[in-house]
């Protein structure tokens, strides 16, 4: 086509004049196409080269990605703590101990360590070419992390180096290399329908095709940076076109594009074009005038849109035109803009998303929350934040490995998304913490409904690597208060509520209310006080008698801990044991109570003949019970107190005994082997599985006070208690009724055949000296004797 030169005139004028010429030109085009298409060949070449270049760009992008990954790798590796000292002492075995497993794991093709003078200390994998390595090593020794690519005999090599820092500055350098070999490149070529060849200094190193003619031509070509033109001509005979890009100092990557595919497409087009061109030419004449006008408009709009893009609006697109040349221009501009937009979007995406789950990260979440809060403030709507923390996730990582943990997190993220509306934002804050933003809520009900849905969906087990994993989560929900516009505040509230949910037994949700904040602070204070209380000896042991319902004598004494808080006064176990359990402080406290009680019991046994066989019972918390050295510790305590093991009764709750059955069973057996007595505390509040109870080596059950309280009410309640006692007797277990407060309760428990009783009816828990007075007063319980003959006869 004749070139258009426009000097200082209006395009419009030219276009109007050119309409007849355009029509003429189209006829010429038709003639040319029919004649045999010189144009097609040229077009085919252009297309081939374009495709070759696109593939090369793709390969290079992969290499660049690999380079960045390599730089990160090498820096992480260099941070291994054992490396620098081993390097300073030239301890090759020590170096190998750290690096050999890492190299195998990461699949790096080579890994080399250099000392301070650039001397090779240790190399792993395929040898690294000195010429490629030298500049990287000297850069690393001067403190830089660098990467480079080159061609070597195995393929496209990507290497990175970094300094190794010791206590006295840079101690050496580490170089790692990875190779994109024939298989890696083949992956690209198979997808693109293009073959690749690698040259080094004019020598063919690798080629993805197996076609013998092609391989011979390539290996004889001696292709260097120059001479591509000649090479292309010789390729044409084999039906291929080529594009090339230099790699490193002496390498060349060549993409070979088969002409056949391109040609076929062109042929098809030519046949259709021939048929259509006649029609088109006629249409052009009729429509020429309008086309001309459109052309001018389009060029103007292209200019405006392009200007807009240059100013940074990459999402702006140029309007397509019905005229091919203009349309090509428009689509080229659009493609450019699209690439820029995609790249920018990718960068932005990476900065604001979690790489593992692809969910928004903390930054993006906070930003969205801020906007949502501002919007809600204007519209007087509610915004809720859910803080979700997986229960016992650490256990998954510890037992199944981080890889499994990561896979599980991805699955959980996917499942969470299915529980939410499209407009809700779900983010991964860190580790196993997720946050969810719910907007446009009428009230808190919308949020709790969503939380219910999440908890329910999580109940379906996750299948990871052939293992079914059951996950639960604790969720905290916070709804914004009017004028509350700080995202951080709302997040903190949800966090506090989540902790509350954890504290209340996990696997459910809690909605934040301001009292939680106060409680959280109070809890923190209490925890500090609790730590101090151990040092200051603020704990006291109280003793409550357990009375035989047959003889009326004190047969046991239960040791109960109280805390004499300097400001709050005497605190009962319920007020601080859960916290002590959670913080682990229960271990020293529990041990202290046991020691104190055992010594006291021994003293009473010696002092009062009537109490010679007195049994002291003490509670074991779940945390104490799970302590691996529990049996040894208790043996030590008994030993130092001089108390017979059979004089100690340890009480654990049903749920503690049921948790991880096999482990519990082992612990209980170890305790039983010592000779101590074992009792299940608060019996009837947990699972109450008698078949399981039968397997446990226990001596007694303490029936929960709630059963005793209900005596005299519903006959059904009484039947349950009666059943428990009957079954316990069949299992030869001693039964102790807790919380006896009235004559009637005593009467009923006694008539059911319960062995022992405990409660305010007999005595509240007493300080040591008060109980001592009771023991001194006499062995039998006066009140009981009064009761039994009259009521039970």
């Amino acid at each position, binding site marked *: 086509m004749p070139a258009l030169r426009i000097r200082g005139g209006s395009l419009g004028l030219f276009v109007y004049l050119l309409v007849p010429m355009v029509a003429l030109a189209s006829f010429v085009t038709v003639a040319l196409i029919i004649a045999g298409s010189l144009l097609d060949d040229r077009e085919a070449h252009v297309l081939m080269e374009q495709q070759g270049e696109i593939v090369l760009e*793709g390969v290079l992008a992969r290499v660049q990605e690999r380079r960045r990954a390599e730089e990160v790798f090498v820096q992480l590796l260099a941070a291994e703590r054992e490396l620098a000292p081993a390097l300073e002492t030239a301890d090759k075995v020590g170096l190998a101990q750290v690096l050999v497993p890492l190299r195998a794991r990461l699949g790096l093709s080579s890994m080399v360590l250099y000392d301070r003078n650039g001397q090779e200390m240790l190399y792993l994998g395929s040898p690294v070419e000195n010429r490629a390595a030298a500049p990287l090593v000297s850069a690393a020794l001067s403190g830089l992390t660098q990467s480079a690519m080159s061609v070597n005999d195995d393929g496209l090599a990507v290497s990175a180096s970094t300094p190794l820092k010791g206590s006295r500055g840079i101690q050496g350098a580490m170089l790692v290399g990875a190779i994109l070999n024939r298989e890696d490149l083949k992956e690209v070529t198979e997808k693109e329908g293009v073959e690749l060849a690698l040259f080094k200094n004019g020598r063919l190193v690798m080629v993805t095709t197996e076609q013998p003619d092609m391989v011979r031509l390539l290996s004889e070509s001696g292709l260097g940076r120059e001479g591509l033109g000649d090479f292309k001509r010789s390729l044409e005979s084999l039906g291929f076109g080529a594009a090339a890009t230099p790699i490193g100092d002496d390498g060349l990557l060549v993409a070979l594009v088969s002409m056949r595919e391109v040609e076929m497409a062109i042929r098809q087009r030519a046949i259709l074009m021939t048929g259509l061109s006649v029609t088109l030419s006629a249409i052009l004449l009729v429509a020429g005038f309008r086309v001309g006008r459109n052309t001018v408009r389009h060029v103007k709009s292209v200019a405006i849109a392009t200007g807009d893009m240059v100013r940074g609006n990459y999402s702006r697109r140029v309007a397509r035109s019905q005229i091919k040349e203009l349309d090509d221009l428009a689509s080229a501009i659009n493609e450019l803009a699209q690439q820029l937009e995609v790249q920018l979007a990718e960068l932005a995406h990476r900065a604001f998303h979690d790489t593992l789950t*692809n969910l928004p990260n903390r930054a993006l979440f906070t930003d969205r929350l801020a906007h949502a809060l501002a919007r809600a403030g204007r519209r007087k709507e509610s915004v809720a934040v859910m803080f979700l923390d997986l229960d016992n996730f650490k256990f998954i990582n510890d037992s199944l490995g981080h890889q499994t943990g990561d896979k599980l997190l991805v699955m959980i993220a996917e499942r969470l998304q299915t529980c939410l509306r499209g407009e809700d934002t779900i983010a991964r804050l860190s580790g196993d913490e997720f946050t969810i933003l719910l907007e446009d809520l009428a009230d808190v009900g919308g949020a709790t409904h969503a939380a219910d849905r999440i908890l329910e969906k999580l109940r379906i087990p996750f299948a990871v690597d052939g293992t079914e994993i059951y996950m639960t989560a604790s969720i905290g929900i916070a709804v914004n208060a009017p004028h509350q516009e700080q995202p951080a505040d709302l997040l903190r509230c949800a966090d506090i509520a989540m902790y509350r949910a954890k504290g209340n037994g996990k696997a459910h949700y809690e909605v934040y209310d301001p009292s939680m904040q106060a409680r959280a602070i109070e809890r923190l204070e209490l925890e500090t006080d609790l730590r101090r209380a151990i040092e200051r000896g603020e704990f006291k042991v109280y003793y409550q008698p357990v009375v035989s319902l047959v003889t009326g004598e004190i047969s046991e004494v239960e040791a109960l801990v109280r805390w004499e808080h300097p400001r709050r006064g005497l605190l009962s176990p319920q007020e601080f044991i859960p916290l002590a359990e959670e913080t682990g402080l229960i271990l020293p406290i529990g041990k202290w109570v046991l020691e104190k009680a055992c010594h006291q019991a021994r003293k009473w046994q010696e002092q009062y003949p009537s109490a010679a066989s007195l049994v002291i019972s003490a509670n074991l918390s779940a945390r104490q019970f799970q302590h691996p050295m529990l049996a040894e510790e208790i043996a030590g305590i008994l030993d130092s107190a001089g108390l017979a093991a059979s004089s100690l009764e340890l009480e654990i709750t049903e749920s503690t005994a049921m948790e991880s059955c096999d482990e519990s069973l082992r612990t209980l057996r170890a305790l039983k082997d010592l000779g101590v007595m074992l009792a299940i505390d608060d019996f009837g509040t947990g699972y109450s599985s008698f078949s399981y109870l039968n397997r446990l080596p226990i001596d007694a059950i303490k029936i929960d006070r709630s059963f005793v309280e209900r005596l005299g009410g519903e006959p059904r309640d009484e039947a349950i208690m009666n059943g428990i006692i009957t079954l316990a007797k069949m299992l030869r277990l001693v039964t102790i009724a807790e919380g006896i407060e009235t004559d009637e309760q005593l009467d009923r428990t006694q008539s059911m055949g319960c062995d022992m009783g405990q409660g305010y009816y007999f005595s509240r828990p007493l300080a040591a000296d008060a109980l001592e007075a009771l023991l001194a007063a006499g062995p039998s319980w006066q009140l009981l004797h009064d009761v039994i003959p009259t009521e039970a006869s």
Partner: protein
Amino acid sequence: MLWRSMLLLALVFSLPLPSCTAGEGKLFPGAAQPAESAIRVSGSGTALPLVKKLADAFRRQHPEAAFEFLAGTNSGGAVQGLVMGTLDLAVVNRPLLATEADGGLVYREFARDAIAFAVNLPGPIYGLSRDQVQEVYGGSLVDWKQLGGESTPILVLDRDEDESARKLVLLPLLDGRSVKARTIVLATADDMVMALEGTPNALGYTSLGLLRIRKTPRVRVLALDGEVPGAHTLAQGSYPWYLTFGLVNRLDASPSLRSFVDFALGPTGRQVLEEYGYAGP
């Protein structure tokens, strides 16, 4: 008229050209959906590559058969998967435990895999005696000079304590002595093979079959007390250091799985085994 012709134009220009997508990067490629009746296989990392080879051979005879290999577990995990129904075939490198055996599972031995000592080339030795193994892992033989090579430390490779190759071969060879050498501990059988292939001056022990399957030109397999490990010496019983691989399936195995197990135990399976230095049960 005009818009219709434009439509034709658009059609013409949108004719298919060779695809031009370069490096499309999906962040989360969805898990490939296996064919409906694919046999789901997992198990010991040492034994799985052999089963893949057997599966390839099987598919040449039965192109309709499909397999799905799941990595990242071990013998015990795979048996558990079998019981739970998430797997169809477990590949184990030890017999079933008493606790596993009562779940309606069928266990069949199908291969012996020699555990061979090996060095990275050009190590100076072609064989080790049992005494030398004890000295190397006991920590008294530490330099290649002591074995006739140049003076440089022997990099001794070892596996985790629980690994079958260690429990069933190295420890019996050490005869009650403990490992005192400063060893390099590798987490998987593949890591061991890669470390042997890529660590100059290294000496270690690993599955002979895996060495062959992974093609390791830089590794020399050593004779032990004069016996060269291989299909022949294994079958004869003159090389007694090996692991026994088994295939485990549920009683209700599909016909295609049954036919695969029969194939693995049959003559063609045996050929595949011997090609890589394994012996039959």
